[in-house]
């Protein structure tokens, strides 16, 4: 994957505007004692007024860093983690407007990106007006983040034309202008859908520059302890809603462009355990037997035919071609928009198909080096782009009488 690299010596040389205001917002509770040492290191480099905000953080000023809390009314413990994170991110962005921050850095509560090497990479591009939004490229093994790599990232790339590895990050930074856009009210929001913030999408629609930073860190599986069906419905459902919201924008986007990346290339994480694909394939087969009522109206005959063939394949030959998977996703997106089936049932019916894709990918990638696996996912991303005309045709003229 070719991505533009900004030479490292450029990063240190650029001076920062004097006394800019940087808001570091943490989307979870935090102890100021943990934050302070890191800020002491980077403070002189930034030469900026730093405000740290977290829920329930006592107001204080220590060593020229101001600590304060922000109100977090919408997040609830029973919400999914990324939903709560989105609520917190919006609250932080509102606070950024209030304190007139020039840069707003949003960090996950585990603070893995709070270190002196990484934080400036999120701040300086925005201060220097090179970027409006800076997103992380997390370290990941070849079987990590498959919901992101298999659906969210390539879908966002094909729709909005930006090659962003993690369009739904738990950490990112942005300019004041983008903070305002992130907090703008959403007309005609679907009350049944989770209000997830998609910073890359909003930046793309607004025509703003997005950059990425390699970070040799990972938050771990955010879906641990959450039923896959629920996670899929939330994340993919939200992605589909964004699709509907910005349809008149992505209709005109063709191809995609690389986004600049800074930071050292992430070492490919090695996989310690293999993945047993049998349960995944079993789920797929169960879906194939029991979900024809939903798959039938959503998927065209040629796709149903391919799935039928796939369900008869021996385990070791179970391969879901990229084109098949991408078209399934696109047809589900269209069905989601048309509301011909209850959205919750629809997204539930996507789960076994997704597991089928995962099984296929795992089997293919099992013997690939991390680098080759990455390229395999790049191939998938290109399949999303190449099949965009398929989506466009069906989106513009939904007609069941198609191949």
């Amino acid at each position, binding site marked *: 994957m070719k991505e533009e690299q900004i030479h490292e010596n450029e990063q240190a040389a650029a001076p920062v505007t004097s006394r800019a205001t940087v808001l570091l917002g943490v989307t979870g509770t935090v102890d100021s004692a943990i934050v302070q040492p890191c800020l002491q290191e980077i403070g002189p480099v930034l030469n900026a007024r730093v405000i740290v905000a977290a829920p329930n953080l006592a107001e204080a000023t220590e060593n020229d860093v101001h600590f304060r809390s922000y109100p977090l009314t919408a997040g609830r413990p029973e919400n999914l983690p990324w939903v709560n994170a989105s609520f917190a991110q919006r609250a932080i962005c509102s606070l950024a407007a209030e304190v007139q921050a020039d840069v707003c850095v949003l960090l996950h509560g585990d603070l893995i990106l709070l270190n002196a090497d990484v934080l400036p990479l999120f701040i300086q591009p925005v201060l220097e007006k090179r970027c409006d939004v800076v997103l992380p490229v997390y370290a990941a093994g070849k079987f990590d983040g498959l919901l992101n790599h298999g659906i969210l990232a390539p879908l966002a790339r094909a729709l909005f034309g930006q*090659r962003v590895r993690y369009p739904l990050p738990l950490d990112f930074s942005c300019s004041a202008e983008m903070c305002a856009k992130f907090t703008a009210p959403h*007309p005609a929001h679907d009350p049944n859908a989770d209000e997830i913030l998609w910073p890359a999408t909003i930046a793309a629609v607004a025509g703003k520059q997005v950059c990425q930073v390699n970070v040799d860190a990972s938050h771990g599986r955010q879906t641990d302890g959450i039923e896959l069906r629920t996670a899929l419905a939330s994340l993919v459902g939200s992605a589909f809603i964004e699709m509907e919201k910005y349809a008149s924008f992505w209709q005109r986007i063709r*191809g995609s*462009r690389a986004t600049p990346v800074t930071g050292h290339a992430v070492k490919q994480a090695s996989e310690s355990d293999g993945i047993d694909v049998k349960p995944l394939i079993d789920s797929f087969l169960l879906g194939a037997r029991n979900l024809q009522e939903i798959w039938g109206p959503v998927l065209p005959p040629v796709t149903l035919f391919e799935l039928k063939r796939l369900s008869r394949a021996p385990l070791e030959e179970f391969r879901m071609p990229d084109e098949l998977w991408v078209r399934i996703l696109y047809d589900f997106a269209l069905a989601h928009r048309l509301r011909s089936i209850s959205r919750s049932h629809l997204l539930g019916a996507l789960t076994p198909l997704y597991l089928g894709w995962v099984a296929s990918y795992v089997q293919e990638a099992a013997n690939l080096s991390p680098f080759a696996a*990455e*390229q395999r996912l790049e*191939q998938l991303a*290109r399949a999303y782009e190449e099949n965009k005309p398929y989506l466009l*045709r069906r989106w513009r003229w939904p007609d069941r009488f198609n191949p």
Partner: protein
Amino acid sequence: MSTPTVQQARTKRLGSATDPLWYKDAIIYELHVRAFQDSNNDGIGDFPGLIEKLDYLQDLGVTCLWLLPFFPSPLRDDGYDISDYLTVHPNYGTLDDFKRFLQETHDRGMQVMIELVINHTSDQHPWFQRARRAPAGSPERDFYVWSDTDQKYKEARIIFTDTEKSNWTWDPVAQAYYWHRFFSHQPDLNYDNPLVMEEVLKILRYWLDMGVDALRLDAIPYIVEREGTNCENLPETHAAIKKIRAAMDEGYANRMILAEANQWPTDVRPYFGDGDECHMAFHFPLMPRIYMALRQEDRLPITEIMAQTPEIPENCQWGLFLRNHDELTLEMVTDDERDYMYLAYSADPRMRINIGIRRRLAPLVDNNRRRIELLNSILFSFPGTPIIYYGDEIGMGDNIYLGDRNGVRTPMQWTADRNAGFSRANPAQLYSPVIMDPVWGYQAINVEAQRSDASSLLNWMRNMIALRKLFPVFGRGTLKFLPSANRKVLSYLRQSDGQSVLCLANLSRFPQPVLLDLSEFEGMVPVEMLGYVEFPPITKAPYSLTLGAYEFLWFELQSALTSQDSDESGPENALIEIGNENDWHAILTGMNLEKLRSLVFPEFIARQRWFGGKAKQIRSVTVTDWAIFDEGRSAYLVTAVKYDSGEEESYFVPLTMVFGEVAEAVRTTREMAIVAPIRSASREGLLCDAFVSESASQALLDLIRTGGSVQSVSGTIRGIASSILPTILAAGEATPAAHPSLAEQSNSSIIFGGSMIMKCFRRHEPGPNPDTEISRFLTERTGFRSIAPFGGAIEYARNDEAPSTLAMLQGFVMNDGDGWKWTLEKLDGYYKFCANESNESEISRFIRDDYFPASAELGRVTAEMHRALASGKDNPDFAPETMQTQEVEELCKGLAEHAAHTLEMLKANLGLLPEDALELGGVVAGRRRRILGRLHSLMSIQSPITRTRIHGDYHLGQVLRIQAGFVVLDFEGEPARSLAERRKKQPPLKDVAGMLRSFSYAAWSALSRYVLQTHAENQQMEQWAKLWIRLVSDEFLKTYLAEMNCDSLLPKKDLNLVLDAYLLDKALYELGYELNNRPDWVRIPLMGIVSLLS
């Protein structure tokens, strides 16, 4: 007595629009609450019922609901006679119901527009009741326009001509005449009285405070009267509207005023002011002209009125509609046009009212679905905001037997149930009967039925609305008509913010062609919007399209997708990046493989000499199988080349990776062999053809020598050694160095030392390769020694396919070059001689001395070869056979088809021929019948024809000159033919024809070269070329026939007929080959064909 006034509303709610220009992108839906849905079963539609149907409207995709008047009223003019502006008629619910409706509509992201009927009130309005009793000249009296006589404002026309005889009516209470532009029960308000405006503004604020998004100013041109004028569009009217607008802007964001001004476009223009009056105005004159254009099948009515339509301020918008609650007004057309429209669209006088036609859309166009779609396509694509009249989305009909305009205001048809699902009341109780005839009735046309019919008008409208909403250019873009000779086609361009959309509408009931000048968009690609289908790119030439009956097309004009669009530009993007060197998995999977498939291989293969598909456009090259060899440094690849048209072909493409100095050397000396740059973790190199690599070549030799095998992903690659390989090996060096042959060939060759040559067959087809098969047969089964001895082969077998030959090893034969090159040198000398000699006898003698021995030797070797090939009588692959009549017929047919195909190719490429071949090309193309006739004459031969295995592609290039003789090479057959065809047994005369043609080829080729070098006189030299060809050919043939010695292999009689047919076939084959591979050489076969025909 104080003037009763409006109580000020105390709270303010926001409208639901956030964009100040929301109305430019809106889709407005006009409905009457009374007609939409009845919730309390009193036979009259109401607000609670309307709320029940909001989901339907949201699903349809409309964004703004325009409600016809729902205020208290005597209902003598369907609610436009208002008796109380500040509440809701009890028939339709309560004010709270309206507020709830407003909230529910806003919650669904839609806006609400209501009527502000301020030209007149009902005579039952308290204001009028007060006015008629108030003293003359008092403020209360002056709420309306009074006169002692009915003679004032004589120039004002009567609008409701069917019912009113005057704009004045006598009021016995007031003892005066009052002014009314509409019905007599609708007295006009007097805007010269400032109190009137005060009250109007209070009414406006009242509804806007509630959150209403837009107001339609009904009958606005008539609000002010002045003596000596027509009392329409007066300056004072505009001043009044400006006040209304100012009041709206002062207190309310993102609201809109829509003017109902049924006027000529230039007269409507002032209602926009300088963007400070009405935001929108209906384009009344356009609407009847759309119908006129449709009926006349002529775009002129539309283009003319649009030409008269002035520019409007940036923040303003036209409102477009096909039908509404009123009659299809014919006020703004000429008398002749009106007469035509009456005749065209209202044959029954009952259909006419006032100055218009009271019919719905679908009945107006005879319920023709295509016409309905066409008109809606114009509605959705013309500059303005489309307004859909309720029921037209399902093609509702009308009832011309109802009075006034009530025929187009019947209940909405929801289902096939009682009362069309509109109400559960007793049918007699309905405010209006439902439409119930067999064609338009609710049983046939209703929402429920159309919802379940994917092909219904309702679904079509929904899709069109959704499509329109995707493209802001329709609501906000400019309009430019594109001229074309065919007036039945309306073509126009909509442009905005860098987006261009081309729209076409065929107004005719028959298909129509259209040629458009789109040269300003040269290079762009029209993409049909509904199906996202790419049409051919635009050039400077007129763009030709054909539209079916009543068809419309919308095209996005997109720039051709450049490599910039997907970041594919530059040589860097051909770069293959891998982690470790020799990591073929990394190259042949993932992004690298995709890069190879779509970008790198097509470019590499297209420029290779051995690639036979140069006349076709490569779409992609897929790796179908591969295996590693050469200790991991190289890989065998079998690829599938897919073309834009035609069958895919398989090619063998062994590759190797080279780095460092080796890569530099390849870059310098073998650039054509480079596939792509490659970068590993530590250094850069090249991915290139394996034959540049010594180790790869040796690995191939070893495979044959050892008889080894390699497993590929889907098959096996196996080496086979011949019985004489040890002899061949012994004759050469122990470790012969390998180097690729640089000769121009259809395959690739490696020479090992001076003793062996390995030919790699690039085009891969399952089945025995004839070169290998014949070489092996001749070497191991016959005494024919005028060939390169067969040393072995590399075979590839995949799954259950027949094995194919990837490479063949032969003993190297010391030679003086191939026969072609040798002959050309001879001819060079010949032409030099001819340049100084004009005596034909001397020249003939030169030929005899110089070339006859070679020619005769060739004849002898050819005969010996044919006898050897026919000697395998026990081998079914080699035993000679007599052709049956049917086979002769098939032979003729095959030759004729090949000829026809080649002639078609010639015709298609005439424009691409070099200049010196143009005339000849035309001559040959024009002699199709004669050519086919010559080939068909084979049918008439008497003697039996024998067929055997033959060389198949016999010519001077296929023989090597050795000392005093020749060695035959390359039994592969004609490269363009399929494997099966090349293995077919054929009459030996085919080879003879090949060699004879080769003499001709050589002579002309050498002459071209000679003339180019010496600038000799061409015509004279051509004569000597023909002489040489004739004499040499005769000598060759004479010797051949003598050697064959009446062998049964040749036809006893009709030999010339057969030979001539094959000569023509060969020349045509050459023509096809050169058209595909070497267009500059095409003159040679063309001359040959012309010569043969003459």
